[in-house]
């Protein structure tokens, strides 16, 4: 069985990870003043994808399960926002919307998780695809409630503590929420919970025999991924100002898995790198070769999986750094010998 146990971050490196996060956050805080509005929206979209990809990451790197179903929860978050802030005009206060979406998505994820996590592997993946297509068809057919294929537009601007946010304000809220979720995810990945998930991935029966509640842990991981995705969904609805049933397309859910693979699932920086690589790739290809997008991304992922496996960009970077380090050390040793 392929049980490559890879440490996401050893605890002694936590400080350097936090420092890197701080550095990147500072860059992200300053960037809106250096680039134009369109680039800022692109960066915002990339930031918002990171938590959703972390959901895929936690299920892949710790449990070796492919989670095609993140689109379910992004759709739930987006449609809830569209209903409450757009169509039914109940509230557009972020401090109400975010906790409400969190609670609703945790309940939905818990209920769906009972069925979806019953069998692992292939069956988990296709149940994810099935559930997201079921949601698609429900939303598409219930025209009176959801607007059907027209979708819902005219979502009001969000309010934060009753202060109305313009685009720049929304960018900073997205940045703040994303960084918070990344820090929380780092904490989760360095906890005994992640070790228990790794034990389940290693050998399910042995894990069960030492007392790990396998089903409960699987469901908890699924709920965490779903909660992350739904918060992303709320902010994405405000960013795009439009939701349509295509947010439940299984292709959209597959995009998150593809971003995770591009970024790499053996390093905690993988989802972040993967999000920005994917968003930029999507932007460039849709601008210049609009009708080749699916072929390009499909072939890219297929090639990456066959050649590099799941290491992705961060894995390649790690291998390069290691080889470079070894070469430098060898050069230093030989120069020491010759010098003497």
């Amino acid at each position, binding site marked *: 069985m*392929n049980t490559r146990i890879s440490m996401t971050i050893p605890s002694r490196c936590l400080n350097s990870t936090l420092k890197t996060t701080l550095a990147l956050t500072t860059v992200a805080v300053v960037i809106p003043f250096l680039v134009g509005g369109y680039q800022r929206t692109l960066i915002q979209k990339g930031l918002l994808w990171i938590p959703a990809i972390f959901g895929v990451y936690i299920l*892949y790197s710790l449990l*070796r*399960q*492919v989670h*095609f179903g993140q689109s379910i929860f992004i759709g739930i978050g987006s449609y809830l926002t569209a209903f409450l802030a757009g169509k039914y005009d109940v509230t557009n206060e972020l401090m109400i919307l975010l906790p409400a979406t969190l609670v609703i998505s945790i309940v939905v994820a818990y209920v769906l998780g*009972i*069925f979806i996590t*019953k*069998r692992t*592997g*292939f*069956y988990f*993946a*296709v*149940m994810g*695809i*099935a*559930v997201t*297509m*079921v949601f*698609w*068809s*429900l939303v598409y*057919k*219930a025209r009176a409630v959801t607007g059907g294929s027209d979708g819902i537009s005219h979502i009001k601007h969000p309010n934060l503590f009753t202060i109305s946010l313009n685009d720049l304000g929304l960018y900073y809220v997205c940045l703040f929420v994303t960084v918070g979720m990344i820090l929380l995810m780092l904490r989760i990945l360095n906890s005994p919970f992640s070790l228990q998930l790794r034990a389940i991935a290693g050998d399910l029966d042995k894990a069960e025999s030492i007392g790990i509640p396998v089903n409960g842990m699987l469901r908890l991981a699924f709920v965490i991924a779903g909660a992350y995705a739904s918060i992303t969904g709320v902010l994405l609805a405000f960013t795009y100002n439009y939701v349509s049933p295509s947010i439940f*397309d*299984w*292709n959209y859910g*597959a995009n998150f*898995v*593809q971003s995770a*693979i591009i970024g790499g699932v053996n390093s905690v920086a993988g989802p972040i790198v993967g999000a920005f690589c994917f968003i930029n790739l999507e932007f460039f290809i849709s601008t210049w070769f609009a*009708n*080749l*997008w*699916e*072929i390009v*991304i*499909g*072939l*890219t*992922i*297929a090639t990456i*999986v*066959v050649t590099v*496996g*799941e290491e992705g960009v961060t894995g390649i970077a790690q291998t390069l750094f290691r080889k470079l380090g070894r070469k430098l050390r060898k050069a230093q040793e030989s120069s020491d010998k010759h010098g003497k």
Partner: protein
Amino acid sequence: MLSTLFSYVFNALPMVSYIILLSFALNFVLYVAGRVSLTFAGVYLVGAYVTVSLGTSMLGNSFSFPLFLAILFVVSLLGAAISIIVYGGFERFLKTDVHRMIATASLLLVFSGLIKLKWGTTPVTYSTPFLKMGSTEVLGNFVPNYYFFMFGFAVTLMLALAHFLYKTSWGLKFRASSLDGDRAMAQSCGVNQNIVTIITFGISGMLASLAGGLYAPIAGASYGIEGNALLLAALTIIIGGVGSIGGAVLTAFIISLARVVTAVEMPVLELAAPFIIASTTLMIRPFGIWGKEFKH
């Protein structure tokens, strides 16, 4: 009352046939070759589009039954060829189930992107066979003859496959290499696993493209039908279990009847009905109603 009941059954016939063929394409690969592969949905898509384009270009509005059968034959060979080429050139190198799932799902994107390049996203139709075959009156319902043709075709194929698997010596070799048997033992007894896997993928591609080709005169071919196909095949596997031909046929009936009944009574729940059945089955019998507990 009885005629409404039978109307549900007759209306479900085309969906039964197409689910039988599709789910068996996936089932066969999972069971005999022991590999996860999602390319059958892409082959389904190609089969539908090729049938439509061959039909409209070669036959147009006239209809000749032998030529239609010839088109279906060509489409099935094309499907088998695509499936074998994708296996030999690409899927062979994927080592774990997770890699196979992600890579074949991305390959589905490539298939639908290529189809979109050639035919765009507007649906194409070829309903001449469906219209020209007429309809007969059975038990108070006018049923198009094409439904009976499609159902008969699917059942014949399943019977042929069952005969092959259970009554021939090559079928014995296939069953020995399957999940029911022991692949390593079969190899050491002289069954060439490469040939078995290649033929398995060929049969799976043939079934998938025939599903697309047979269903094309009824539903046409449009962008995004491979997601639906993937969904239905996977739900059938979950409900019916891996490795049983009779189970696959009966599960196809269950799912199609559920969809047809909900499509008439409560259209909103049409796709939710198979999912609800699948969830219930997962709670009661996690390995499928006719499935066995394979260490998969």
